């Protein structure tokens, strides 16, 4: 080992220690519980029991995919328009995007409950105008809205960052070589912002698929996602083994989808997650 790499190892040591204690060890604990029964004996029972939850997995995936697509559809044009503003306005807008994130996720979600519920803000206004009211809590729409609202900044931020980094002279070069606004978008802006899009998708998809609070509050108990089941197994049923096996499968799902996403970015550009 050279002197240089020895020093680097020393600098990295605290992080490695931290990662070992708080990431690697817990992962092994999850694996241990996932493949044992309540007596501690090795067992595939938990993994086999997952078949009962196939439907929950399906719903979770569909919800989080829809939420991710919607955030992308809102976030991408938003980030693009942002880069067209004067620098000062860009900073201001970015502040406004980040502002809700200074508040706790729970409080934000609770506020949406107040807005959407039976006697909530929207329905009060509707009935005040003599219009029929709608029951929104407990609908898939409400849960997806909660996901989109909470995770939209995570989509906008990485896309905006990659777009802002595109050298203005590249944009001029594209125009110079015959691109109108649409062609410039297709041949320059989109390909160059792919790393940001990949980060954004990962950062929205991962928390969406594993959320339980949003579905609990805005799903009104009618919509169960994987996160809800895991929470229930651990907090209510004290079935750590089943909870761990659910977490384990969810983790594998996330890793597979991240691997797929990374293929799109060709390994260039930095992954935020």
């Amino acid at each position, binding site marked *: 080992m050279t002197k240089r790499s020895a020093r680097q190892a020393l600098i990295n040591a605290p992080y490695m220690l931290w990662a070992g204690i708080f990431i690697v060890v817990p992962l092994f604990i999850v694996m241990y519980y996932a493949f044992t029964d309540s007596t501690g004996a090795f067992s595939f029972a938990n993994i086999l029991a997952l078949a009962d939850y196939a439907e929950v997995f399906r719903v979770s995936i569909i919800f989080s995919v829809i939420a991710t697509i919607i955030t992308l559809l809102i976030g991408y044009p938003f980030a693009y328009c942002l880069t067209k503003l004067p620098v000062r306005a860009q900073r201001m807008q970015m502040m406004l995007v980040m502002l809700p994130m200074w508040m706790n996720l729970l409080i934000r979600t609770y506020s949406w409950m107040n807005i959407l519920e039976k006697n909530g803000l929207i329905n009060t206004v509707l009935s005040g105008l003599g219009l029929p009211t709608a029951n929104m809590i407990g609908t898939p729409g409400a849960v997806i809205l909660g996901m989109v609202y909470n995770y939209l900044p995570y989509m906008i931020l990485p896309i905006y960052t990659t777009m802002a980094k595109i050298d203005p002279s590249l944009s001029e070069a594209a125009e110079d070589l015959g*691109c109108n606004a649409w062609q410039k978008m297709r041949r320059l802006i989109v390909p160059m912002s792919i790393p940001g899009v990949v980060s954004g998708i990962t950062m929205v998809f991962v928390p969406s698929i594993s959320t339980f609070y949003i579905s609990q509050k805005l799903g009104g108990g009618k919509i169960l996602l994987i996160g809800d089941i895991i929470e229930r197994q651990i907090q209510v049923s004290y079935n750590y083994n089943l909870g761990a096996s659910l977490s384990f499968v969810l983790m594998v799902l996330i890793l597979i989808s991240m691997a797929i996403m990374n293929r799109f970015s060709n390994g260039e550009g930095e992954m935020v997650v």
Partner: protein
Amino acid sequence: MDHKVVVELRDITVEFDGERILDNMSLAIRDKEFVTLLGASGCGKTTTLRLIAGFLKPNSGRVFFNGKDVTDVPPYQRPVNTIFQRYALFPHCNVYDNIAFGLRVSKVPEPEIKERVTEMLKLVNLSGFEKRSVSKLSGGQQQRVAIARAVINKPKVLLLDEPLAALDAKLRKDMQNELKNIQRQLGITFVFVTHDQEEALSMSDTVVVMNQGKIQQIGTPIDIYNEPENAFVADFIGESNIIDGVMRKDKLVNFDNHDFVCLDSGFGINEPVDVVIRPEDVDIVPLDQGMISGTITSVTFKGVHFEIIISVNDFKWMIQTTDYHAEGETVGLYIEPDAIHIMRKSEYSNMFGDYSTFSEEMETMSDVDAIEEEE
């Protein structure tokens, strides 16, 4: 050159934040011509280029292509291509895709693109580099890709924005020759922007000297060097001694209390003028053979020649000669009639002093009054 005009700028004024970048400028560029816009930074040369490319609209005035008004035509519809100062290659494309970019946008069939890209790579000596990532190329190679990417679209006019500024001196010389060859081979108009007067003189058919948003002189490199129109051009292009003089009559000028025979005429009797004499055109002779005399105040060895500063009546002349003379010597100066160039007085007269200092900054630094005034 009797080719027809391809690009014409008419009465162009451009302002940014109330600052005038181009001041009522007009310029005509002919077909197949190698035109260089030469000037210091901030003189408006890059702005002129951006006007032709279409990245910028003038506050007033019009831009014409082949007689057609294109002032409001966006860049992607203009028959010009640009080589950017820092190349602006697309980092998400390899060499081949960068060069093919323009052809793909205009939907040229792939087999033809392949043929033309291959041909271009050969032209710029990059055959075999198709699959390389542009970020892994050297500065000179990136430059060649930028040239190929622009030239492959067969533009009527190629705009080059200080394309060689980032290259080292030797590579720059090679690229100068290469660019000149490409221009001859393809027979397209080049509009080249640079602040390097040597580059401008050695490459161009026509040099446009600019300062403060105005054209100071348009001419062939030889005209610009030998017949500068005013003190600014004389000072900017090469080294020059600019002396106050008075025309006695046609072909006779007086300066430093001596009447010199010269070749210029058409000035008024006793009209005050600026006299330009290039440092290499003055001969140092023994005192009794000189037309005027002075004392050598400094001698610097420059390799090819010595640079000798001679004080004549407190005016510091610069003289370049291959003969050595010692500091402190008192010598005579001899000037041939064809070495003397007479210019009318202009706003730039007396702005360029003698060679007591070489830069304006040094001049203000040594001028105590000026420093006190600033404070």
